[in-house]
């Protein structure tokens, strides 16, 4: 039997002290590419460059926020408004959300998601969606903790040979 109280055993979340959430700026490109490469193990500089350019052209439907601790970029979220794919009403689609592995469990992901949710809501979108790999338990558990559940759409795919 543990000597710690139940409340003590469930402690694990440290508040995000001095974390600032702000919209993407051009100077963030390099830090985002580096953070994404560190987390995913794949450097995708071209993908991010094109996404940033598109973000610049479609400010009313694309949203991009970063989390800063001091001058250091420690997380980001990107999303867009999608509509009428196979009858889907407009929804806020989260394309990516990443937090520095050394700064997790500080609610930075929650703050980033809230920032993009606020933007979607300002655009009068009421449904939030994303797509994750079945074995991506880290992100699955994060989005579940935010109240997200399986939606009415099913993702299908095949190898095109």
């Amino acid at each position, binding site marked *: *039997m*543990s000597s710690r*109280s*139940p*409340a003590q*055993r*469930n402690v*694990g*979340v440290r508040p995000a002290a001095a974390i600032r959430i702000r919209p993407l700026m051009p100077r963030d490109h390099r830090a985002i590419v580096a953070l994404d490469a560190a987390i995913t193990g794949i450097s995708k500089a071209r993908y991010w460059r094109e996404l940033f350019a598109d973000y610049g052209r479609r400010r009313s439907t694309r949203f991009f926020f970063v989390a800063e601790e001091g001058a250091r970029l420690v997380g980001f979220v990107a999303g867009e408004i999608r509509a009428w794919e196979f009858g889907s009403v407009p929804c806020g689609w989260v394309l990516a959300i990443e937090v520095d592995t050394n700064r997790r469990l500080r609610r930075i992901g929650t703050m980033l998601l809230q920032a993009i949710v606020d933007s979607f809501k300002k655009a009068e979108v009421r449904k939030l969606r994303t797509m994750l790999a*079945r*074995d991506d*338990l880290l992100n*699955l*558990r994060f989005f*579940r*903790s935010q*109240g997200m559940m*399986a939606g009415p759409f099913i993702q299908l795919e095949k190898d095109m040979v």
Partner: protein
Amino acid sequence: MKLQKATQFALYSILELALDPERQLSAGDIAEKYGISNNHLAKVLRVLGRAGLVESTRGVGGGYRFSGNARRTTLLAIIEMFEDIGAQSSDGGDQSVRTDIGRSLHPVLNEIEQIARATLDSITIETLVSQIKRNAGRGNETGRAGHRLAATSAK
């Protein structure tokens, strides 16, 4: 998804106790609330106790309380203490799997199994407790939320 009775009792008990980890409840309290057998529940609680998810205190005012890590414990982890999810469809030794029909049918059954496992493994006790509290905050007191959960899970 049809879960065995013991598995359902384990899920109700864990969630009921995790709603307030400081609170102690007797097996009788939980059994009465969910309309389940006291003896059957006692056996389930012993399994959960051995896994460190609940701890018991004897004597007056004693009972069970949640002692696990709500952030780390998933629904799948609890279910797998009592039954093997989807074992039937992944049986590679089954002769039917090697037939033409089996080669087409089993990937579909495996797809269902994998989605079910991913769903159960992605939901922690903390996430579900938060959801229960949110629902309760929308006008239902905790007991009613618990009963609704029981009804939903038993489908």
